[in-house]
């Protein structure tokens, strides 16, 4: 029996979506997989092309060891089996942006085998998703169709760039799970430094395999949605595709196994090629390359050097900083956020730092539509602000005001506090004078407060108002209690 809580209701009953993902992640490396050409994004067209990348006669591929190590690191980060011997195959097809007429990939014997990761879902639950394999392969170039009325141009800068294809098991059952899976993979890759995870630049893209079935039945026929390049589109593509398949099946039709494309403008998937039109790739071992053999010592060394990954970090934040699993999860999900938080928390009250980062800071970023990298407030500045709270220079409430100004101007908190005179009044004499004045002016309220101690709150408010919010709240409370004889 299925325990899926995410069944979709069709006209004739409930359906379950089954999904597996193939993520193509560009390996973070200075050079291509089989040539020394650079890989920088956005360079002038055809400026990063070696003789090998352009497939000139007699050129031979030479494996880039750094790419191999990045694949091993990634495999270890996915908790997967590392294959000490793997084989590069040729995947043969003709296309103008594929200079060799074949892509060098790994078909039968990939460098990384089975693994498993955990994904965090919105309801707070954790789900395990299996990894089928990871293999190394070359990227193709890019065909450019808008430069000439009747011809297409080819840009080979990407030709030969190293990709890792990470194939999941068909373990996902709803769009949210697929999105959480991609986010988690991206997060792991970024922590490892093996891929920048930048979906806009195409460094990370996903093929989504979608099928539907009646709960408990065998797997249905799947369709593959190619090259979806944002997490939002992944959700939309899945929702559309599942609904499409259910409609077809409920109308008595059957699903054709095919490759589809997601059109983000129309919000729908469209058939790209059917199974009959599918290429026969004629895979065979690339005779230019010997099998790739890596030593166990290298794997051990890379394992020992692995950075702390999101799941470990989350557990440590909960354990060491007493953060809630939710807060910890939010903080670690993006490496950049986590780095920011750790810089803010360094040497400070971690709980307070977490509240500020996940509360005011993320709130302000979201409102402004900014990424953490372009934040006007640095981790150091936010840390300084927290220092001002901790040493009683300002209250938490004033700090929020200061933060708003920091976010607008980028100024340091100390400067803002100084210029605006926001230092907390800790001078008991000054607070006492303010209290005395208010008590003297409001004898009726004093009488009421003696009857009803909760009225003290009204006095606190008056004192804060008269001190411009700068009075130390603790001192105000203590003094008021004494003066009112509570």
């Amino acid at each position, binding site marked *: 029996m299925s325990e899926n809580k995410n069944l979709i209701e069709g006209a004739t009953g409930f359906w379950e979506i089954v999904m597996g993902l193939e993520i193509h992640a560009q390996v973070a490396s200075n050079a291509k997989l089989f040539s020394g050409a650079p890989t920088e994004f956005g360079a002038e067209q055809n400026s990063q092309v070696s003789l090998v990348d352009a497939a000139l006669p*007699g050129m*031979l591929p*030479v494996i880039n060891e750094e790419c191999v190590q990045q694949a091993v690191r990634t495999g270890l980060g996915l908790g997967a089996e590392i294959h000490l011997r793997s084989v590069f195959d040729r995947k043969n097809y003709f296309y103008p942006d594929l200079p*060799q007429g074949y892509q060098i990939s790994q078909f039968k014997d990939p460098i990384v085998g089975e693994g498993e990761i955990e994904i965090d879902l919105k309801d707070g639950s954790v789900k395990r998703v299996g990894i089928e394999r990871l293999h190394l392969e070359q990227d193709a170039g890019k065909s450019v169709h808008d430069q000439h009325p009747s011809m*297409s141009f080819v840009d080979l800068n990407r030709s030969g760039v190293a990709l890792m294809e990470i194939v999941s098991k068909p373990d996902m059952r709803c769009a949210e799970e697929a999105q959480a899976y991609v986010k988690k993979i991206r997060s792991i890759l970024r922590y490892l430094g093996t891929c920048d995870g930048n979906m806009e630049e195409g460094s990370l893209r996903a093929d989504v395999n979608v099928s539907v079935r009646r709960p408990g039945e065998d797997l249905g026929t799947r369709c593959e949605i190619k090259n979806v390049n944002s997490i939002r589109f992944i959700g939309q593509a899945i929702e559309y595709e599942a609904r499409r398949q259910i409609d077809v099946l409920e109308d008595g039709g059957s699903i054709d196994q095919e490759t589809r494309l997601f059109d983000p403008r129309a919000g729908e998937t469209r058939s790209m090629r059917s199974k009959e039109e599918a290429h026969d790739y004629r895979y*065979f071992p690339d005779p*230019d*390359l*010997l099998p790739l053999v890596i030593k166990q010592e290298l794997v051990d060394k890379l394992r020992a050097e692995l950075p702390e990954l999101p799941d470990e970090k989350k557990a440590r934040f909960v354990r060491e900083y007493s953060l809630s699993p939710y807060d910890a999860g939010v903080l670690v999900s993006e490496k950049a956020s986590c780095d920011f938080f750790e810089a803010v928390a360094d040497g400070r009250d971690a709980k307070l730092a977490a509240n500020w980062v996940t509360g005011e800071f993320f709130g302000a970023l979201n409102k402004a539509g900014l990424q953490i990298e372009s934040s006007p407030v640095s981790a150091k500045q936010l840390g300084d602000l927290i220092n001002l709270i901790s040493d009683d220079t300002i209250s938490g409430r004033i700090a929020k005001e200061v933060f708003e100004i920091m976010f607008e101007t980028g100024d340091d908190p100390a400067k803002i506090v100084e210029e605006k005179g926001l230092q907390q009044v800790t001078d008991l004499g000054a607070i006492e004078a303010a209290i005395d004045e208010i008590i003297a002016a409001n004898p009726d309220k004093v009488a009421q407060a003696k009857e009803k101690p909760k009225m003290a709150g009204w006095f606190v408010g008056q004192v804060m108002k008269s001190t411009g919010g700068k009075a130390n709240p603790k001192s105000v409370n203590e003094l008021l209690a004494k003066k009112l004889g509570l």
Partner: protein
Amino acid sequence: MTELTKLTLAEARAKLAAKEITSVELTEAHLVAAKASDKLNAYVTLTPDVALKMAAASDARIEKGEAGPLEGIPLGVKDLFCTDGVRTTACSNILDDFTPTYESTVTANLWADGAVMLGKLNNDEFAMGSSNETSRFGPCINPWKASDSDADLVPGGSSGGSSTAVASHLALGATATDTGGSIRQPASFTGTVGMKPTYGRCSRWGTVAFASSLDQAGPITRTVRDAAIMLKSMAGHDEKDTTSVDIEVPDYEAALTGDIRGLKIGIPKEYRVEGMSDEIEKLWTQGIDWLKSAGAEIVDVSLPHTKYALPAYYIVAPAEASSNLARYDGVRYGLRVQGDDITDMYEKTRAEGFGDEVRRRVLIGTYVLSAGYYDAYYIKAQKIRTLIAQDFKQAYKKIDLLLTPTAPSPAFAIGEKVDDPLSMYLNDVFTVPVNLAGLPGISLPAGLSSNGLPLGLQLIGRTFDEDTLLRAADVLEEAAGFSAEPSKWWTEA
């Protein structure tokens, strides 16, 4: 033929070193001979300017006492090796006037050692053929003629231009490549020495690929010593070819001690193929006697999977070729025939660019790699390949070298087998197993057929044991005393 073109490579080297001759003189003599050899169609691109410039530079280095091991030696280059600034076509229309901006590792090694490039030599298109009849430049003609016919004969293939140039004294030596016999069979057909080293001994970088797991460069020369000298310069590890092997290249010339006493020579019974002519049989027996007289021990051995070698080869080689030749698509360089759309452009370009034999092999290769056929053909052929390699490994437990004929017949007439691919493929029956096992092999002229054509014997060595192979070949060469030369009919008006 001037006195200078009569020299062997070793002799020329000695005269250059002794400053009895200059490289410019030597080079000019060969250029004159090459220019007078149009009827042979050996050179497809002659590079006199490059040659004379290199020769002058060589002479300057000799003068300064900075001579390299091949200083001033004029050589021909098979048109499969990419040469910087010199048109390289693999004798295929699809490469059109492709001019590389880079130099193959093998030729770069030769130039670094002081050798001089005379030009580019004819070959079968993409090295696919055993007669040099599939070249876009037309067939190369064997300098030898049968005593009973005036018919033009094939020089063997695919390195027909190399074998012809060396046999006709149009170069002191030539580079060649061997995928299934393309060095050794043409050597046998032209009375020259053809040496295919162990797979991985020479870099494949910058050499137009036919079948990557089988292709190997080597020299064609007039003597075993010349082969030893040339191979030493051609060979070596290359970081740009990960299948080239990082082991030291020995001084092959020093291995020519003339002493093969105690060496065990295997005679594989499976090479006594059905229909083999008496004269080949006789030559083989003669070879056995020569080696025996020189003190070698003869051992009968069995290579039981030999009969599967040719079929396995004609699956593996076309499979790799079909993929290797996919890059010739009209998009980036070479020939392009415009079409209505990209597929039409591909089809027109490749139809016009490739000749019949290349198309045949691309089709065979595509077929054997296709879904549903891959296991039955490609995988099975690879298994046979493993068995063949094991056959040799077993044999080499008992022996040091194998002796076989190089080819089942002497040179045949132009056009004789061109419409009969199967009979053409049978030319490689004794050479193909060596490539499948990646072993070194050498063919040297051992006698003449009844109608006066050269016949070769093949020695096959252990992996990376070219030293022993050359040592025995040197002894066999001495014993055979082959000194016949073709008549110089091609220079007559």
